[in-house]
């Protein structure tokens, strides 16, 4: 879809998760949790199934948030800005480092259809920095889970419990697969990275004492439901932020005279960030610089890194 003919769908305002569907305080009953998850998933489902022109940027930004959460789970300290740097400042094909690889994993999740074969599973295990063992290949019950008639959150919870049972050290993989299971069960064309952002959130706080509810533990299914409600609300909120920015960007497009401007606008709508020195055959890096300056003055993009050099632009 080119930027010009997408103005009609840009008027589309993404649905927000209604306030009554957000948990206030700890959720104590399974029924309530399931109700919240269903309500929130409906809003998200409407959004995912509408082919909005800025869907790429939205998904990749969610992937970035997920990667930041995953990095914290893995015991590293990189934040979102550093992850962005690791990804966008590497030369083509270079190793983005351990934290950058986690971002690569969740970016891949945002781009892939929800079915996964043994080869893809193996490569994602490697990217996540985990050990591969053949018992993970036994997870092909994944197909069965996705086609079952059980509700999406319970499918995800069952899959996570299975991963936890087989490989207690593969927590990141469990979260990664959970999003995939949700997408498969919801029949989404592409997976939506979101659940891992709630991994340390209130959803998995155990009722009485301290500590967290582990996959397969008591109350985990309820936890997944609440986490899903929170994550879906977060995703919808993010879409609500991105939509008007994307509208401004597309509205600014006719005012641009640079030759390769169309490509840049498409790229901005498709990805979380674009390097300030991005160049193509029709756009030199100096041209790109002028273009981004012009876009910034038109308030159509934001500079994301806050630096005077090595700038990254995005919606």
């Amino acid at each position, binding site marked *: 879809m080119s930027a010009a003919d997408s103005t009609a769908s840009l008027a589309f305002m993404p649905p927000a998760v209604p306030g009554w569907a957000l948990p206030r305080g700890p959720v104590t009953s399974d029924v309530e949790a399931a109700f919240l998850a269903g309500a929130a998933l409906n809003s998200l489902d409407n959004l995912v199934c509408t082919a909005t022109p800025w869907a790429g940027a939205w998904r990749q930004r969610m992937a970035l948030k997920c990667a930041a959460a995953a990095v914290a789970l893995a*015991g*590293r*300290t990189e934040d979102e800005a550093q992850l962005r*740097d*690791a*990804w966008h*400042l*590497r*030369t083509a094909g*270079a*190793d*983005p*480092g*351990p934290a*950058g690889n986690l971002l690569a994993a969740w970016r891949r999740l945002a781009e892939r259809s929800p079915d996964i074969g043994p080869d893809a599973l193996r490569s994602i295990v*490697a990217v996540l*920095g*985990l*050990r*591969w*063992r*053949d*018992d993970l290949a036994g997870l092909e019950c994944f197909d069965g889970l996705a086609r079952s008639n059980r509700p999406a959150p319970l499918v995800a919870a069952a899959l996570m419990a299975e991963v936890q049972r087989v490989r207690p*050290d593969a927590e990141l993989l469990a979260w990664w697969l959970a999003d995939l299971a949700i997408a498969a069960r919801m029949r989404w064309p592409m997976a939506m990275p979101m659940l891992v952002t709630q991994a340390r959130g209130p959803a998995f706080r155990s009722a009485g004492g301290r500590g967290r509810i582990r996959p397969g533990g008591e109350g985990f299914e309820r936890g997944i439901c609440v986490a899903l409600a929170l994550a879906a609300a977060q995703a919808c909120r993010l879409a609500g932020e991105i939509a008007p920015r994307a509208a401004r960007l597309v509205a600014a497009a006719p005012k641009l005279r640079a030759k390769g401007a169309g490509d840049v606008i498409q790229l901005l709508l498709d990805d979380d960030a674009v390097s300030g020195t991005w160049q193509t055959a029709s756009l030199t890096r100096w041209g790109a610089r002028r273009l981004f300056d012009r876009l910034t003055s038109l308030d159509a993009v934001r500079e994301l*890194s806050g*630096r005077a*050099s*090595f700038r990254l632009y995005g919606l």
Partner: protein
Amino acid sequence: MARRTQTEELFDAELADMPPELRWREWMGRVEAVIFASPVPVGRETLARVVGRDCSLDLLIDDIRDELVGRPYELVAVAGGWQHRTKNGFAAAIRAATGLGAPDSKALSQAESLVLLCIGYFQPITRAELGQVFGKEVSRDTIGHLRKLGFIAAGPRSPQPGAPYTYVTTPAFLSQFGFETLRDLPDFERLEDAGLLSKDRLLAGDLLPSFSAIGDSEEVTPVHDQHEVSVDDE
């Protein structure tokens, strides 16, 4: 040529007509032979070609390991594959007999090992940041030597004046030091729990004493490529 393709076609990985016990032994033999014959760690895909489809490689490897308990070498999982390596306890014997494993120009010096360990923990990290960690400049020669040995590679560029390259470790690093993933680096968890594993704090300079203490206690002395040694050993 034609003959070779014929034998390849005739190779029977499934061994369907053998009794299960015998078949398992045959598979164990094949897997061990393939790993033994290879100078580099052998990956799962390669091994899967010589065993049946429903054979669990992990169980098979476990059985082979059990057999090797009394031997001076063992089967270790490194860098996504398996390799025969001489057991650590025999390092002195090998050194005495052949001189292999003794400090030589190809091996890492103590300083280089520390730099490598530091990159392993805090990657991606630039040379300037490494210099701050150690309190003196880490020379280009050190980095160059590590790169030449294939232990580190260039990662993303750091957003600082001059856009210096950061350095990241490679699979060869994992293989050489007997790690399967970066999570196997010694005491990763304990450092995390102690709140020590932070590049920012390291650069602030309040971490150096404990860091060098780790460097002394852990095995940073060069691990020689022991596979060749184990072949000589036979």
